[in-house]
């Protein structure tokens, strides 16, 4: 189901923003209120409300990553926060003070920031994603962001956009001149996890159908198995998703697949217990990692990664695989190599972007 807010709160300072007009046009039945969110405290945790506001900080920022583990030096384009999906494991629940789906509509500032960056460092490759604090496409039928962003990146020599999603909202991507500068990526998980933990999210089948369409439209694709969650029967279920993935998409169109086992900051546990009392994912065995996040034991992570990698390799021996926030030891043991540092991992991913474009 595509998100249709019942109510839209519009911060007065953005009431004339062009994107607001587009969103209002696409939400004919929503009630509209021009006010600041401070005056609507009852809406702070409502998922059926949409907040349109300005991003007062920077749109472009480095991914917070984590300390003591290898990270890919991803760059984030902060187009909004929260999303209409309710994934029990979502880290944003612990990071943000509210869960109201929010779109930053002052995109002129965003373009200014991006132009400034790209022009200032013409020899650098920028790999930028919008799916860090929100789902890249969950609001696209309302905002039509992709219609602006994809052609914008198509014209940039040194920048690539990654649209990371769990949805199948891809209609706007169909007729765009993307010039392979946009990677459309999906977060995938075992069917049981999708069913029990990723509330309101489309099934894996629907995600992969959407991926196939994007492939047919010539986009580069990527996939993220993150978070990989331990549960009885995980081996078969993850294997099934991988098999299904490669029954739908051509491995040569996949620029990367990332893997990351479930990890969480301790503050998230009581939130999951309260909001998702049926969820069992926090009751597995975790140890506190060097970054303070709770992680599965190394032996478990190694076992899970090895199994998934071997299945992926069976279908796609040459696809680029990387870990999100993992230790050099895990890299070495499971992938047989380890980037010397975050910079090297970044370069390897940039190379994947540049291939064929």
């Amino acid at each position: 189901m595509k998100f249709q807010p019942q109510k839209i709160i519009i911060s007065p300072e953005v009431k004339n923003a062009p994107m607001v007009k587009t969103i209002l046009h696409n939400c004919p039945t929503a009630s509209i209120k021009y006010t600041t969110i401070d005056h609507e405290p009852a809406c702070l945790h409502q998922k059926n409300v949409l907040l349109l506001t300005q991003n007062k900080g920077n749109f472009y920022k480095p991914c917070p990553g984590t300390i003591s583990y290898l990270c890919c030096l991803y760059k984030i384009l902060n187009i909004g926060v929260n999303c209409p999906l309710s994934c029990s494991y979502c880290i944003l629940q612990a990071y943000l003070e509210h869960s109201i789906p929010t779109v930053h509509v002052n995109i002129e500032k965003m373009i200014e920031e991006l132009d400034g960056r790209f022009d200032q460092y013409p020899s650098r490759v920028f790999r930028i994603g919008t799916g860090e604090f929100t789902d890249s496409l969950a609001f696209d039928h309302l905002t039509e962001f992709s219609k602006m962003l994809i052609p914008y990146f198509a014209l940039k020599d040194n920048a690539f956009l990654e649209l990371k999603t769990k949805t199948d909202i891809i209609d706007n991507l169909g007729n765009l001149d993307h010039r392979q500068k946009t990677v459309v990526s999906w977060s995938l998980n075992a069917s049981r996890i999708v069913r029990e933990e990723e509330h309101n999210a489309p099934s894996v089948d629907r995600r992969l159908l959407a991926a196939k369409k994007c492939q047919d439209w010539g986009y580069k694709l990527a996939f993220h198995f993150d978070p990989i969650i331990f549960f009885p029967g995980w081996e078969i279920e993850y294997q099934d998703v991988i098999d299904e993935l490669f029954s739908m998409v051509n491995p040569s169109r996949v620029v990367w697949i990332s893997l990351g086992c479930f990890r969480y900051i301790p503050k998230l546990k009581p939130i999951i217990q309260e909001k998702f009392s049926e969820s069992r994912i926090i009751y597995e065995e975790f140890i506190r990692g060097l970054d303070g996040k709770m992680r599965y034991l190394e032996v478990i992570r190694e076992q899970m990664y090895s199994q998934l990698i071997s299945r992926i390799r069976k279908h796609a021996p040459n696809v680029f695989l990387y870990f999100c926030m993992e230790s050099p030891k895990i890299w070495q043991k499971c992938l047989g190599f380890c980037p010397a540092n975050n910079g090297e991992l970044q370069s390897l991913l940039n190379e994947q972007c540049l291939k064929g474009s």
Partner: protein
Amino acid sequence: MIPLSNKVILVKLDEINFESQPFIVSSPHDTNKNSDSLKHLGESIKKYGLLSPVIIQKKGNSIFLVHGLNRVLACRFLGMADIACQEISAHVDQQGVYLFSLCIFLSHHKPNIIEKSKIINRLSSFFSEERVIQEYFPLLGLPPNKKVFFRVSQLSCLEKEIAYDLAKGSINEELALKLLKFSSSERLALYRFLQSLPFTVSQQFELVEYINDIARRDEVDFHDLLNHPFLVNILTRDIDEKKKAHMVKGFLRKKRYPKLTALEDDFLKKKKKLSFPEKVTLHPPDNFEHGNFRFEIKFFDSLDFEKKIQFLNKLLTSDKFHSLISHQ
């Protein structure tokens, strides 16, 4: 001014409504006849009589006690038939009477945390949250903010047994708040279990976490888990209480972290086979993942040092040693 009659009247003790006590602030009430405070008060009343009358309000057919619960209880235990009272006019509304009672209470008591909680909840039935925080929190010695309001107001939901210990300060307030997350029967089962052995506060927190996690993961009842034959056996054995506490914690930790404890056990088993000299210890990496192995050597002279170094040298060629550190 509250219209409090100057006239002292005698009221039959059994006519005072004990079922509903909307104006009593003190909590939890020690209704045990043999409690020290009631015994002392009873002796004083026997010797000198009731020095000051209690305060009541008559409403319809009911007589509500406003102030003087301990005196009423002591008089009842002494077998007295009636008690001297001063009466507040029936025209004064509940809010007026409660604030009067609260004012007297606070003038000669420092409220315990349960009393604070009940006062906050009662005041919230009359006033806005904001007003309670701004006007009354300073009187209760609480920092005037919403977080504290939320925290403290919850505590009055605790069962009498737990509330009593919390008011006495014999359980940690954070722990009490943590226990509030459970159902009443789970909470009581947990609480009684934690009280059964001399666990430290940090152990109590750990145990609550273990028990809750195991129960949710394995979908077992708290009671069933806490009545596990192993635990019952430990609790009924004639051994030192601290040792029991240690064994109970070890059992629950193992149940919560079977894989991690298996790694620890395996490491210890292999280490034992190497027969380390006294005061030479090998520590595994934290959680068998981070950092390095660590040797700790204590020695008392150069000869002892030399012996220990020789032992370490021999480890280089020991298969058992390599097996110990290789699977990490």
